[in-house]
Each structure stands twice: as structure tokens, then as C-alpha cells.
């Protein structure tokens, strides 16, 4: 059995666990803990502390694993471990929380430094009325026009599929260009 992996990263409460849960054929193996700190607790009750883990069986010989990183900075020691050997990565950003954009950019830069693999950025919660427009997010996140910034709703399977496919197209394009 061959296995490959992709990593879903991003700031706290960006929607990583939901993203994996929308396409994983198993219930996401989540290492969540109740949040004790006040400001974070106001956003959600529990958070990922080690990783999330989802699986998509491709055929009898191949399995894709999706790893979600912990969003809280104090667990960032897990990031490098999780990024090892990944095909590519997805940076999830909550479009309704501009206060997390700076951290999202920092996470993106950190992962780029770990591995020169293709990546896409998913602008999550685009269905919310207070979501920032995708093109404004591109500037706020300082993303080059060549970087794929995709509107996303992590609870919608089709939306998640589009993000995964765009990442796979980028991986294929890089292979074909000799990268």
C-alpha cells in the first residue's frame, strides 16, 4: 500500500478540522482539547493540539492522508514534523477575521521555509456576510498573483474538493515543468 500526504495549516479557528472532515472517509481523528484561555474560548470551545488526521482511499494501492496542524502558536513545534514528506499544503484563512491574516502569512512563510512544495491558500467562510473579498485578502496576505487564493467554505464538500484539486493541478504542473 502506497501513501501520500497533504497538510492543511492555518491560524487558530480557520476551519482546518472542518475542511478535512468534509472529505475524509473516516471520522477525523482529532486531538482536540477544551480551551482554557479566555479570548480563544470566546471563538470556539475546543481546539486541535497535536494534529487532525483524515483519509481518502484512492484505490487498492494508494491512500491520501490529510494532516491538519494545530492552529495555536504554542503547538507550532508540531508543524515541521507534520510537513515532512508532504506533497503540498493548504493554508486556511478565515475571511471574516482580518486579525488572523498576519499570522496566516507568517505560517505560510514558515511552511515555505520547511519545504519547497506547491501550496494554495483557501479563503474560508466566504459564505459569511462579513467575509473580506478574496482580492482584498490577496493584498492583505501579500500573495503574488501567481499564488492560488481560492474562495472556500470548509463545510461544503464541493468547495473543499475544488481546493484539493487546485493543489493537485499545481503539483502536476510543477512536475511537468521539471520542478
Amino acid at each position, binding site marked *: 500500500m502506497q501513501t*501520500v500526504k497533504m497538510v492543511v495549516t492555518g491560524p487558530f479557528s480557520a476551519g482546518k478540522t472542518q475542511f478535512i472532515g468534509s472529505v475524509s472517509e473516516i471520522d477525523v481523528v482529532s486531538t482536540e482539547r477544551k480551551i482554557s484561555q479566555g479570548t480563544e474560548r470566546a471563538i470556539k470551545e475546543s481546539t486541535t493540539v497535536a494534529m487532525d488526521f483524515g483519509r481518502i*482511499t484512492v484505490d487498492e494501492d494508494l491512500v491520501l492522508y490529510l494532516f491538519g496542524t494545530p492552529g495555536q502558536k504554542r503547538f507550532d513545534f508540531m508543524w515541521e514534523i507534520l510537513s515532512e514528506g508532504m506533497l503540498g499544503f493548504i493554508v486556511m484563512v478565515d475571511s471574516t477575521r482580518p*486579525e488572523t491574516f*498576519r499570522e496566516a502569512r507568517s505560517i505560510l*512563510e*514558515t511552511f515555505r521555509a520547511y519545504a519547497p*512544495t506547491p501550496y494554495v491558500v483557501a479563503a474560508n467562510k466566504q459564505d459569511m456576510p462579513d467575509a473580506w*473579498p478574496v482580492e482584498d485578502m490577496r493584498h492583505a496576505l501579500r500573495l503574488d498573483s501567481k499564488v492560488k487564493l481560492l474562495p472556500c467554505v470548509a463545510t461544503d464538500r464541493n468547495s473543499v*474538493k475544488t481546493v484539493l484539486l487546485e493543489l493537485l*493541478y499545481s503539483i502536476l504542473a510543477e512536475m511537468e515543468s521539471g520542478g
Partner: protein
Amino acid sequence: MALRGNLRDFTVTQLLNLINLASKTGTLIVDGPSETAHASFRDGKLAYARIGNEDNSLASILHRANKLSAGQYQIIRQRGGQMNDKELGLLLINAGYVTQEDIILSLHQYFTGIIQKLFTWVEGFFRFENEMLPPDDRINVRMDLENLIIEGSRHLREWEQLQDEIPSLDMALKFADRPGANLRNVNLSVEEWRVVSYINPKNTIRQIANATKMTDLEIRRIVYGLIQAGLVEIVRPEGTTLPPARMFPTEDREEQKSLVNRLITRIRSL
């Protein structure tokens, strides 16, 4: 859709950077600690600004810039009546009291002052109203934002924030290929010019800091300003190789492609 948030999380410098890069047209409204500021932009250039209930009539701005005497200012206030700024400006130019350049420079100075005040606000809600423009009777200018952004980034002192902005000093810098960004029109300090002179995808930020004898904090602050002004971008240093990671279960190139194609087919079928 909304472009709104809190200055605590998204600074004025970052907002100006966004407006500049996206060539936005509209008005930024910031509810600060004790007053509200409005700054209007056309195609990413500052056109107009006002703050609180401050008298921002042209006569008042020219008086504050010492282009009109107290007496002249009083007379205009008494006799100006319903005359708007544009009409007053023309009248003053035709009467030889001021030149067009005096008016433009005074407005630049006044609007810059408002933006500089905004840089000191660390708390406050902001929103950007697309297509909302200043009143027709006001004189608009076209000020490039790069200098204001550089100025704003000089106010950024928090180590933690700078570390978030530039997480690794082992990355390199390259000049952005964005049309319109011209270093010659940007007012850089001597230290900033020294850094600029070393910008090359072969030099890491750490090497530039060593060459210019700057501390981590100093180099981060300068690099941050240059990035925010859209002048440079962070890139992986040329010639560096990362330790090989085993991404695919096979070394064969064709098998790797086939594997990715199988993944694509499977995801499509979900």
C-alpha cells in the same frame, strides 16, 4: 462584502498597503479613541482626509500652513460666505495671494498630518466604503502612498509583530516587479538605502543585517517597511537546497505523475 476590522489586528500601515496595491477607490473610516477620521482614495492614491470636527476648510489649512495671514483668514471667514474650497482656491490664485503649488503643498501637508495621527492609533474600528468619495466642493489631491507606508512602518516597534511579519531571517529579498513602484520617488533614510543596496536574491536578510551592522530588530523593521510599501518581496535564497524529503513512495517520474493523476480522478469522484 465587507472590508472592516480593528486597528489592533490590522494596522493603518497594512490598510494603506492594501489600498495602494489594490488601487482602491473609496473612503477609509476609522473610529479612533476620541474621534473619527476619514481618508479618501482614488485608484490607490490619497485624495482627501479629515478628522473629527476639525476645521478643514481650505482657508483654515492655508492659514495653518502660513500661506494666509490671520487677517486674511478672518476676512475670508467673514466674507467668504457660501464659497466652496474650489472657488476660493481659484479666487486666491487669481488675486495673487497664493499659488496653485502653495495650495497643493498645504493640502499634502495637512492630509499627511492626519495619516500620521492615524499611525498613533492602536485601537479603533475601521471600514472601507468602496466608491465613497469626498464632497465635490473639496479640492482633491493625488498622493502616492509609498512614503506614508514607509513612515508608518517606522512607528512599528513591537518585536513580536515584526517577528510575525518576517519569521525567518534566512530568506532573501528581491525587488517587486510591480509597475508604478519607483524607488526614486520614495523617501528612504540612510539606513534604509544601505539595506536596499544589498537586496539581491542571493543575500539572506541575515547577511544583509551583518553587512550593515544592524540588529535583528533594526533589520526586521526596515525590511517590513520596504515590504509594506510594495518595493520588495521575500524569496527563498538562490542556490539553497533543502534536505530531500520523500514526498512520493516512488522515485520514478512517470509513476509519480500517474499517482497524482489517480489522486485527481479520486478527488473529482468524491
